[in-house]
């Protein structure tokens, strides 16, 4: 047994044949090939120098494998002189086999992969979302709308305001905006009693308007412009586009950064950058839609910007749509102010109807 000898009488080398864990003490003889002989002089293996490869070992030990031998066969040399002698004879000792790696290649391909994923996220996904969103069946959109509506109601209050006179005024306003915007009649507006001034378009065409927005509005034009903005989202299928775009962007980015530990914030930042630039475009287009509707109705489009500016002055960012601070509120206001014109069309609501609309949440 090898361990019976004190360890300081070191054999020249130790050989493991890769088929058993037996520790063979061998002497090496250098000729045409490397001969591994045990202490009885038996030849255990004959290795070609060119087949030898360096394997991982603690410092001070040269550990060799052989590409032509069993994959786990190892020769270990602890004597520095012998190790140097053998190293000089082996030509392919540090050949990176298919198993080991070249750092430069990994860096190159990683950067290429990352660039390609980011390009897809920035340029490809918007195109895909653009084409795919209108193709989704309306039933799917509406089902999704039900889910979102339930969540919004759970979070923000679920009392639907239904004062009859207010309902009638709302219906008149919505009808004016709807026909001017050229939408079919699957769209609807519901007022929810809530202290948060906001509005949101649901997938499937329903728009939720929170009562605090009505309280903050100065005239019917402002509310009409808000509704038109939300209808713009409906007409452009923005919900589905954003869902497809942001969902797949999140997936791609998450995939890319994987578990680079502590990447949570990095993933979040990248996602936010990519998705917010996309939503900013959607908001801009919805504003355009609102402006066009208001112009068609012969009313000034500036109301939306004024209302928004008043709201963001009051409270900061909000998760829901209308005050989501994507495009800077000042920029939006200035854009709409620049289009301000003397009204050419009739008022959208009479003074009495406007009062009724503002009081839509009062309980009878």
């Amino acid at each position, binding site marked *: 047994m090898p361990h019976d000898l004190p360890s300081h009488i070191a054999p020249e080398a130790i050989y493991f044949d890769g088929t058993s*864990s*037996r520790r063979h003490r061998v002497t090496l003889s250098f000729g045409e090939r490397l001969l591994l002989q045990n202490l009885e002089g038996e030849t255990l293996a004959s290795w070609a120098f060119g087949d030898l490869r360096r394997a991982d070992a*603690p410092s001070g030990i040269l550990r060799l494998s052989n590409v032509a031998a069993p994959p786990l066969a190892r020769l270990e040399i602890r004597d520095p002189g012998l190790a140097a002698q053998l190293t000089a004879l082996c030509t392919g000792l540090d050949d990176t086999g298919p198993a080991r790696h070249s750092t430069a290649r990994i860096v190159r391909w990683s950067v290429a992969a990352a660039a390609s994923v980011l390009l897809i996220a920035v340029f490809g996904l918007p195109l895909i979302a653009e084409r795919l969103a209108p193709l989704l069946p309306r039933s799917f959109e509406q089902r999704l709308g039900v889910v979102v509506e339930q969540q919004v109601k759970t979070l923000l209050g679920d009392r639907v305001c239904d004062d009859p006179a207010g309902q009638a005024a709302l219906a008149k306003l919505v009808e004016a905006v709807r026909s001017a915007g050229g939408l079919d009649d699957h769209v609807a507006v519901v007022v929810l009693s809530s202290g948060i001034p906001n509005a949101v378009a649901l997938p499937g065409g329903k728009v939720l308007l929170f009562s605090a927005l009505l309280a903050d509005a100065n005239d019917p034009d402002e509310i009409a412009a808000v509704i038109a903005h939300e209808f713009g989202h409906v007409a452009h299928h923005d919900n589905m586009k954003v869902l497809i775009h942001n969902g797949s962007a999140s997936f791609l980015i998450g995939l890319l950064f994987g578990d680079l530990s502590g990447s949570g914030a990095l993933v979040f*930042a990248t996602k936010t950058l990519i998705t917010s630039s996309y939503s900013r475009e959607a908001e801009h287009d919805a504003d355009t839609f609102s402006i066009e509707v208001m112009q068609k109705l012969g009313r000034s489009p500036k109301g939306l910007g004024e209302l928004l500016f008043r709201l963001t002055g009051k409270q900061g960012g909000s998760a829901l749509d209308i005050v989501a601070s994507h495009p800077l509120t000042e920029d939006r206001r200035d854009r709409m102010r620049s289009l301000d014109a003397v009204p050419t069309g009739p008022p959208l609501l009479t003074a009495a109807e406007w009062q009724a609309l503002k009081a839509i949440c009062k309980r009878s």
Partner: protein
Amino acid sequence: MNEMSSVPQVPMVRSGSFCGSRAEFRRLVLRGGLLELITLGFYRFWLATDMRRHLWANTTLDGDAAEYTGTGKELLLGFLMAVAILAPLYIGYFLLGIEAESLQTFASVPLVALFYLFSQFAIYRARRYRLTRTVWRGVRFWMTGSGWAYALRASLWALAVLLTFGLLLPWRTAALERYKMNHSHYGELQGRFEGRGLELFKRGWWIWALTLAFLIVPSLLWLPYLTIVVLPALPVLFALYRAMEWRWWLSGLRFGAVRLQSALPATALIPLYLKAIGWSALLLMGFSLYLGLGGVVITLLTGGEGELFRPEALQNNIAMLVLTGIGYLLLIVGFNAVMRIYLLRDLWAKVVNTTTVYGLDAAAEVAAQGELATALGEGFADGLDVAGF
């Protein structure tokens, strides 16, 4: 007197030793961390491989060092396989979520259970991969068993642990380790696990009780400041538990007639955790200092009129954003390096150096056996962000 006479007359008592250079490992993780940054994380597969190669190759048992034969490419492949399976699953999960939500708001929570099952599968298969890449004396370790059977057991046990506020944790650990070890082999030697849950419980119940008390009492008494007082105790308790668990785990390992014994002192890991926390705090302080200086410099350069420190003005400053981004990324590299040096390398060294092996003569001539396993589990573990050993 020579030293031999003090060794008990048990055949083959050998101790493990770790002889890796700390400076070399530090270089490895710092370089690897920077490469991880440059490659946006893709280098993680090769860094993990290089760290394991270093740890394995410098771990010596009875004079012979182990070897890790896994490759980064295998991990990358495992990751891609996991993505191929997880991607449709994520979409299915999303659609299922919509269906479930339309029935009842926020009803999709139980679906999380499915992902727990997957992560346990990942833990088992990742261990299997690592074990089959572990070679000692020219013979590899290997592992059989079903990842799904394991995942089911692990999930049921997790439920039991949850229902008992953690009381059953030692029994869960023991049962799962028994399953893993009963399917582990070194060549022709069959593994098993002889650690008992009760034993771990007897040693560690007070840690469990203290932790529970620390977490519950302040909130019961409405004394939030008490939480702040006991908060520093939590890492110490955790370090005590980890040391206890390592010692119990190693002492329960068997391969045929070979058995391990760990003499890891109960307090051995406390300095490591405290150092890791201390370094992290230092890094955070450095980061804030850097941000503050950066802010001042930018404000001075752009000729800030009036108020010097207007945070909202800085928020919209591109240069400041870039500075913050770079600082943040370097902070992550620093954090990762600290974790890897103290909680991986140093911990490993302490554990190995306090381990003794008995009955090694049974492993003097073990015939090689066993198949290599794929890195699918590693891929799942990567994709689901779980870790196990």
